[in-house]
């Protein structure tokens, strides 16, 4: 796959248009984090991309194929919704096999990469929410696709499994396109290369995450000794001396200065995530 292109894409349900005139062209295999407040249209965008929703106007093209009209193109897309979407009455193995029988794929490979061996013969309905999510994620790895649309794939999953899933996606993104929606801003920053923001159904931002700038940064500095005298403008919050700066480079200067003055620093922490502002009303 060379590119995914959304041109003037509007889509929704019934007569209600949820996403409006979205233009987006992805040409680099990578992880694209999709952010937006609840109700912004993230799920609708995913459903329109994978060809479930007929566009009100515009189109979605995977290379030269229209995704709504081409079955063949849709087979190149994996979509993980926020629901588990597995037959709950089956065992984990049989539930995955159910999909493997329909669309092809290797169940043993999925069991192996997601460490599902211990759950293999358990009924899906008897699993915890986190385990269910883990198995649910497994179905998108049954066979290789070109485009992966993942709606909060690590919600309800414990940190260890979250990390494993992120590693799998990072591996995938070397030559595949991964669109990843998340409410976890730290996770989004950690995993994403590009950031796509939608609000009220409209695309409001698309750029590399590293280019995201914020108006100010709050940084917490923890030290073994009292450094309040060295940082007169700081405030003490939960054991951190909090300073506010205009750009990250200032932090290095401040740290250099207070170390020279005798500060015994044990931790420096960014207290706000630059992505936070994309969730706030502008």
């Amino acid at each position, binding site marked *: 796959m060379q590119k995914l292109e959304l041109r003037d894409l509007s889509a929704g349900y019934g007569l209600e248009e949820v996403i409006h005139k979205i233009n987006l062209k992805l040409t680099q295999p990578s992880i694209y984090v999709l952010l937006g407040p609840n109700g912004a249209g993230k799920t609708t965008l995913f*459903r329109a991309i994978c060809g479930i929703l007929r566009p009100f106007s515009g189109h979605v093209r995977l290379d030269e194929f229209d995704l709504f009209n081409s079955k063949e193109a849709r087979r190149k897309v994996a979509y993980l919704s926020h629901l588990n979407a597995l037959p709950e009455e089956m065992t984990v193995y049989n539930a995955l096999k159910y999909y493997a029988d329909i669309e092809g794929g290797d169940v043993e490979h999925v069991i192996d990469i997601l460490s599902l061996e211990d759950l293999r013969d358990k009924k899906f309905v008897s699993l915890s929410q986190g385990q269910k999510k883990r198995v649910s994620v497994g179905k998108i790895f049954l066979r290789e696709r070109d485009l992966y649309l993942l709606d909060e794939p690590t919600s309800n999953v414990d940190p260890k499994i979250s990390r494993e899933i992120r590693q799998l996606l990072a591996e995938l993104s070397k030559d595949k396109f991964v669109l990843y929606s998340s409410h976890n801003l730290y996770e989004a920053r950690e995993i994403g290369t590009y950031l796509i923001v939608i609000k009220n159904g409209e695309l409001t931002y698309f750029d590399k995450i590293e280019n995201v700038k914020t108006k100010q940064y709050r940084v917490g500095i923890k030290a073994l000794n009292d450094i309040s005298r060295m940082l007169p403008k700081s405030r003490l919050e939960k054991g951190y001396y909090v300073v506010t700066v205009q750009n990250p480079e200032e932090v290095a200067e401040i740290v250099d200065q207070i170390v020279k003055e005798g500060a015994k620093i044990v931790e420096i922490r960014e207290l706000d995530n630059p992505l936070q502002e994309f969730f706030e009303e502008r």
Partner: protein
Amino acid sequence: MKRSTRLSKSYFIIGAITTVYGVVLSNLMTVIPKIIPPDIDTPVPIDLMSSFPLLSIALLSLSAVLFALPVIMLFVYDKNNGVLEYLLSTGLDQLDIFKGYVKASLVLATYLLVFAIILNTAVGALVGTSLTVLVTIAVLTFAIGISEVFLVTVCMVAFSSLQRTPMGANQPLGVIVGIVPMFPALFLPLAFPKYAVLVDLIIAAVTLLASIALLLSISRLIRREKLLP
């Protein structure tokens, strides 16, 4: 099909009980004269020996509908928990999905109908029911049973797809609409015994054609988004 058998066994039991009742009805007129000798001086307006057993056709067909109901429950269940959404995303379209559920319900219904026909023929042979009556019942039960299950499944799938909240509440409507064409088979054998077989065949043919037409049209009329949870 395997999934629906795991989902609910109650409908299979009810279907089996209805089948037994149908078999009893089918052979009743052969057994009764042996227990209560007929009054040969009283004229009988219709030939009950050949027309009354035909009433069992509707009942045996209904048992097939009951037997296949779990497939429709499964459709609603799959819609609600996102399985249909996932299947759509893999490249399947509405018709592929509808056909899958119709096929499963027809296979289930076939199992029951074959069982019902074998049971009825065996019991009939045992009690001495006319071979012509038994063959007629076998052919018409299979024809009406299969076409009814087809229609009920398509109606229920259509109604369940079109309703968003509360999902699945329209299933009974699908059953009612689906079995209405079968109603004439419940009284025509007694009202017009001469035309009963012909009418039953017409019911089967019309129901089958209506089912196919409905399946093809709902696949065009019902958009993919209607299968979303």
